[in-house]
């Protein structure tokens, strides 16, 4: 059953065994697991349900429908754009479908540093097998790379570096290239068309356009949630409540800590909202004057350079370099220059190939409570900026090896390289606020999981230490940033949390 907050009667009061706040990969998969196990479940989602028939492939309309603040969100100091989904299915609706099992090296690191003994590659493997079956994860055939990604592959192979095509959660994909605006063909196997329907088919209720404002607690237990039904204008139009025996918060690494901090929950670790990681990234462009690249055509993200990743290959730079495509408006903001000169440069648009840097950030930011909204404190630390510089050089090297006439960075000061000798130009540019285009798509780590309540916000089963029945299941429970696209890790850890809920709350009278 689905209830829309735009139509529900103000004062709506629901009750269930479990209420799940958020329907991204974490919330949706936990809801599906618990519903399958016979628990009554209510899923609450602030965003709308947007079916494929409403995915218009038009930036203005879809960014408004599918992203927080219409895609305008930034860190408080303006250092980086912060993009994440706001719809049934969460960010899985707007991602580029890249799937990585949590790398073994990362799992061992989490075991060693955070006492997460259950997260061994061997124990996680069956979980990932099951998740990949639901999501229809398959490795992209190199023959299906678009020109942009194929150029990246060529450069990588000529340099003798390690690289590969992505695994993707797609079914019958046409390669239209509008993945970030939602899939018009239901090819992307997002949580919205996989785990959410599984949950509702097993009796779960989906309440959309309903913003949870508070988790209610009493005597060491969560008792439910309350919040606002939203109108079509996204403004509150009435209140609602959900009483539940178990509360699962899955609002993502920004809204989960914001909700829990706003609710005044007890956090013995003092780490709630801290340890915000984001994979800050910036594009590096290759210019191929004689060839039509059209980086926006086909599967935009198909190939990555893994050579410089620590979690994959123990490289100290610790970055993934991924092929990306970008529509005109976005590209226009990244390239420097003004007026006629800029316009002439931009006529080369179809000859630009682009790669995005996914830097594994080591110095975290934090999320705190502002006046009615989360405040994201994040910027690029000098040590991370140094690795971003090295990453920029490697991406540029790949483009030059692939035959690019030059490679360009996204600095506000025009910075280009015709050969590797030109990398010294990077001595003259900054990496601070307003000096380059920096954006993050992967928010992680603000309610980290671990075995010690003095250091970690949630237990190894995702339960907040001071409560018997309050859980977190989303990317906020990552102990660190992952260094790879995080979607499958969210599903995997949520699966662990789901089992934890079934084990730990069985005695509460539920099946």
């Amino acid at each position, binding site marked *: 059953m689905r209830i829309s907050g735009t139509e529900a009667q103000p004062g709506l009061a629901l009750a269930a065994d479990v209420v799940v706040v958020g329907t991204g990969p974490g919330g949706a998969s936990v809801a599906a697991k618990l519903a399958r196990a016979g628990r009554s479940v209510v899923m609450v989602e602030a965003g709308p349900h947007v079916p494929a028939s409403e995915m218009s492939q038009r930036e203005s309309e879809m960014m408004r429908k599918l992203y927080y603040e*219409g*895609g305008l*969100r930034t860190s408080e100091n303006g*250092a980086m754009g912060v993009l994440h989904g706001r719809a049934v299915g969460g960010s899985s609706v707007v991602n580029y479908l890249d799937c990585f099992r949590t790398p073994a090296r990362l799992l061992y690191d989490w075991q060693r540093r955070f006492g997460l003994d259950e997260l061994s590659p061997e124990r996680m493997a069956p979980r990932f097998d099951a998740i990949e079956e639901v999501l229809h994860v398959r490795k992209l055939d190199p023959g299906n790379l678009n020109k942009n990604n194929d150029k990246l592959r060529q450069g990588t192979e000529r340099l003798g570096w390690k690289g590969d095509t992505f695994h993707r959660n797609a079914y019958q994909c046409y*390669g239209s290239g509008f993945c970030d605006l939602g899939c018009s063909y239901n090819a992307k196997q997002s949580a919205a068309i996989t785990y959410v329907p599984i949950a509702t088919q097993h009796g779960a209720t989906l309440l959309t356009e309903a913003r949870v404002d508070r988790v209610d607690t009493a005597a060491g237990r969560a008792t439910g949630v309350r919040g606002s039904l939203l109108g079509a204008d996204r403004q509150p139009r009435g209140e609602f409540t959900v009483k539940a025996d178990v509360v699962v918060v899955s609002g993502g690494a920004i809204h989960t800590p914001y909700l829990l901090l706003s609710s005044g929950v007890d956090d013995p670790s003092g780490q709630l909202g801290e340890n915000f990681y984001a994979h800050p990234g910036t594009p590096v462009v290759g210019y191929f004057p004689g060839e039509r690249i059209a980086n926006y055509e086909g599967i935009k993200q198909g190939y990555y350079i893994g050579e410089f990743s620590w979690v994959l290959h123990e490289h100290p730079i610790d970055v993934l370099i991924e092929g990306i495509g970008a529509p*005109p*408006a976005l590209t226009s903001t990244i390239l420097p220059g003004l007026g006629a000169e800029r316009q002439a440069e931009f006529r080369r648009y179809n000859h630009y190939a682009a790669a995005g840097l996914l830097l594994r950030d080591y110095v975290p930011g934090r999320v705190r409570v502002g006046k*009615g909204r989360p405040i994201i404190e994040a910027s690029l630390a000098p040590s991370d900026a140094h690795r971003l510089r090295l990453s920029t050089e490697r991406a540029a090297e790949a483009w030059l090896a692939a035959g690019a006439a030059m490679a360009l960075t996204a600095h506000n000061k025009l910075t280009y390289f015709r050969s590797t000798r030109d990398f010294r130009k990077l001595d003259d540019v900054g990496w601070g606020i*307003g000096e380059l285009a920096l954006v993050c798509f992967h928010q992680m780590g603000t309610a980290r999981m671990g075995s010690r309540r003095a250091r970690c916000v949630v237990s190894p089963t995702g339960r907040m230490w001071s409560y018997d029945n309050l859980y977190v299941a989303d990317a906020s429970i990552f102990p660190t940033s992952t260094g790879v696209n995080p979607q499958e890790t969210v599903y995997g850890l949520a699966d662990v949390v789901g089992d934890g809920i079934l084990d730990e709350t069985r005695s509460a009278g539920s099946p």
Partner: protein
Amino acid sequence: MMLSRRALALGAVAAAAAIPRSLHAALPPPVASFGPADLDVLDALKGVVYGPGAEALDIRPALQETLGFLDADKQPVLASLPSTFDKLSRVLVPTWGAYAGLAPATQAAALVDWLESPLPFRRQVGQALRQLVLAHCYGNEATWAQLDYPGPWLGRVPLAAHPLRFGEPS
């Protein structure tokens, strides 16, 4: 009317957020619209950053629409950004008179002064305004032809005639 919300995320609100707290305190109560003088500044910036043909692009309605997607307490800050830029330019650059009334070369020089400032706050404001205007220009379908960008598939590419790139048996 096509805008890149993502593009705007790279800078537009960033500058609003980066305004010092003392300036926040002096801002007017929340309003979700640019005033006429603000739009004049943005129009003038359009000529500077977009270049030839800018006069044919009407981005004012789209700019107004953009404001409505911000968190409520960010809206008045972004709405006041053009006037902040205008007024501070008179002191910091300095310019003589309203930005919208300056000669094009002077307007360009003033914006460059912001973009290349050693102060992060000024760079961020300059970039935010530049990106805000550019994103609205290139979000407009009228600019796509010069880039040879075809736009959405829907209504253009018949699926029946298009092979599945990543087909799987059901």
